[in-house]
Each structure stands twice: as structure tokens, then as C-alpha cells.
């Protein structure tokens, strides 16, 4: 996504056409403002992170302050998929179908160590990071993350959405699943996930 190099425009006219003008930037700002303040989360809770997610949604931390008043238990009315907990391979087609059912614009938060990297479950049952199945916007570290951590992740996502441009259609493109999941070359995986694990010699692609 953001890491893909964009080819440089060749002429001035092409540059102007690709650049946002006053109207689109103001419109983007308005639309992004409304999107950031009405994110409807689709909770995909599989483990102890889901308990923290519930705490985040409950009155003490109160997700509703950030425009997430309504938990969307139907993916068709949801904006943000929050994967809270470990994802076994048996659930991989399920989360992919939930993601495919969500309409654009949509974002994903990977909550906790297991959802982000497999965590301690480096075993035969466990998906090693949900970003091999669906594209992820924000990773929240922790085992499980405290509600403040998830709220910070949500604020980061709101910040990310505020910087989006209406003219950038690539943001709204569906990321098609290859036969082996989402393809990321091993070098890219190591680049974005370094340092990983408890040793400087341990890389995520290994």
C-alpha cells in the first residue's frame, strides 16, 4: 500500500491531473472528518484480547467517545474489523469472508500479539499474523493490550484516515487474495516487522 513506489509523472499536465486541487482537498477533509468520527467496529474476538475489547467498549473507557457508539455485529454495516485474539487456520476462511462482506471504505485493526504475529503460538494451528489473510492498518501490541492501548490504536487509525485522499483510488481497491494468502515478499515482511521476537537474529519471514 503506502510502501509501493508510485511512478513519477512525466509531464506537467499529468502532474496537475494527479495532484489534488482546492475542492477535492476540502471535500476530502470533510469526508475524512465524518469518517473518523463514525467508525463502526466489527469485533472479531477470539481470545483474551476480546475481554479487553469489551472493557474498552464498556462505560469506564467508553468507545462511544470516539464515534464508535454502535458495535456492528454485521460485517455489512461495519467500517473497522477489529481482530481481537489469536486466529487459528480453521478461522482463516471465516475472517476472510467477514472482510470480503464489509463494504468499502473499510479498515482493519490487529489487536494483540497473536493477531499481529501469532504471538507465543508458533504452532501448527495458528495463522502467523492476520496480515497474511487480510490487509491490516493498525497493529496494537500487547498480550493483551490494555484498553488504553486499543484506544491509542483507534486514534492512530483516525489519524491515518484523516490523511487519506479522495483522489487516491488505490486506497479503496480490494486486496485480492492469492492462493497462498496476501503476498508480501520475505524482505518486505522483515523490513516492516523488525525487530521481531526475542532475538535480533530472529526474523519474521523465517
Amino acid at each position, binding site marked *: 500500500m503506502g510502501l509501493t513506489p508510485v511512478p513519477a509523472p512525466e509531464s506537467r499536465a499529468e502532474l496537475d491531473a494527479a495532484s489534488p486541487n482546492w475542492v477535492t482537498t476540502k471535500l476530502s477533509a470533510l469526508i475524512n472528518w465524518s469518517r473518523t468520527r463514525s467508525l463502526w467496529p466489527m469485533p472479531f474476538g477470539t481470545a483474551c484480547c476480546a475481554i479487553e475489547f469489551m472493557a474498552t467498549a464498556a462505560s469506564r473507557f467508553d468507545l462511544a467517545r470516539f464515534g464508535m457508539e454502535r458495535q456492528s455485529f454485521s460485517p455489512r454495516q461495519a467500517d473497522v474489523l477489529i481482530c481481537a485474539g489469536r486466529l487459528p*487456520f*480453521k478461522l*482463516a*476462511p*471465516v475472517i*476472510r*469472508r467477514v472482510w470480503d462482506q464489509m463494504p468499502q471504505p473499510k479498515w482493519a485493526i490487529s489487536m494483540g500479539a497473536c493477531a499481529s504475529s501469532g504471538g507465543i503460538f*508458533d*504452532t*501448527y*494451528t495458528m*495463522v*502467523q499474523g492476520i496480515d*497474511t*489473510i487480510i490487509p491490516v492498518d493498525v497493529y496494537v501490541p500487547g498480550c493483551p493490550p490494555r484498553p488504553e492501548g486499543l484506544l491509542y490504536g483507534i486514534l492512530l487509525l483516525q489519524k491515518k484516515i484523516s490523511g487519506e485522499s479522495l483522489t487516491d483510488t488505490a486506497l479503496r481497491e480490494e486486496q485480492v*487474495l492469492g*492462493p*497462498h*494468502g496476501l503476498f508480501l515478499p520475505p524482505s518486505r515482511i522483515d523490513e516492516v516487522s523488525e525487530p521481531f521476537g526475542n532475538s535480533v537474529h530472529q526474523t519474521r519471514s523465517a
Partner: protein
Amino acid sequence: MTISPSGPALQSRFGAAVTRVVESCGDTIAYVSRDRAHEILAWLRDDPGQHFNYLTDVTAVEYRDAERPLEVVYQLRSLDRKADLRVKIELAKREPLEVDSVCDLWKGANWLEREAFDMFGVRFRGHPDLRRILMWETYAEGYPLRKDFPLRGHFSRAEQTRQALAANPEAHYSLEELSIAETFHELPAEMRERLAKGERGKVG
């Protein structure tokens, strides 16, 4: 703790079919031969003096010592007598891992035996529906709790992801598992017809 009276009772009734009875951590363990296990378990359930009417668990154990046989374990409980008994069948690893199903004695054995089959590859002869229960049905890497199974599985992560994504989560559930069976007559006629024909879920 001493050996439960069920142990000597088994030995006097079945003789050589009960290879040995030992006490471990307060529990009595009876090792029985594979061929007469079903008969012995049926007697333990039905004999008025035994009356083990509740099957707590069916599982299997494989030890690190490669020479040591794999064991199928039945944990029995008599709810009336408040007594427990563990029955084990030893299976040599070079022979096919097969025992008789006890689903006809305790209906609760159905899923327990499926789990033992899924995790250890023990086949239960006469089981009405011996399929994998924890792993998905098309799982091809083997039996995860066997000692020769690597922790991360046999296949690469990419291949595991590919196979998992190719699995159809709706394809293999029976009516009972979907809890439709009890409300079958309340379903629309058209849906009843489709289900009666054995149609299963499809990925769109």
C-alpha cells in the same frame, strides 16, 4: 489409597484379558487386551456391582520412548457408587491402531473418539461417524499429538495458509451439528426438501 475392588473383580472374571491392574496416584488403572476391551467395558457398565454408567473421557497417550506402546484411555465413573476406574488398551505402534468403538455403550463416546482419532490417528471400529473434529476435514498433515509430528506441522506456512483458505467452513456439518434437527419441521418446505436431499453449504 488402595486398588479399587473393580480391579480384582475384572481379573477374576476375564483372566488373561486383563494384563495387569496397577494403582497410580490414588487411581486404579486396568490394562486390558484390545480384542476383549469392548466386552470388558460393557461388563463394567452393566454389572450391578460395577455400574460404571458415565464415561468421563476417551483419549490416547503416546510416550516419548518409541518402544513403548500407544495407549487408549477410558476414564469411567459410577455416578451411583461415586467410584472411578481407568481402563487402558495398549497398542503396539507397528500394528494398525484400531480398537472397537464404545459408542454403542455410552453415546457420549462419539465426539471423544473422534477427537482421539483426529489427534492420534486411532481408528475406532464401528464408530457411526469417524471424522476429524478439531482440525478441518481436509487437514492433510497427519495427527498433531503424535510424537513424530513437528510442532509447526509438516507443511510450510504458505502451504498451510493456502490449504486453510481453500477449506469450506460450511461444507461438512450435519443437521445435528447445525441444530436444525430438532426444529426441522418448522423450516420452510423448500429448505426441508433441499436438506433432505443432503445438500450442503457452498461458498458463494
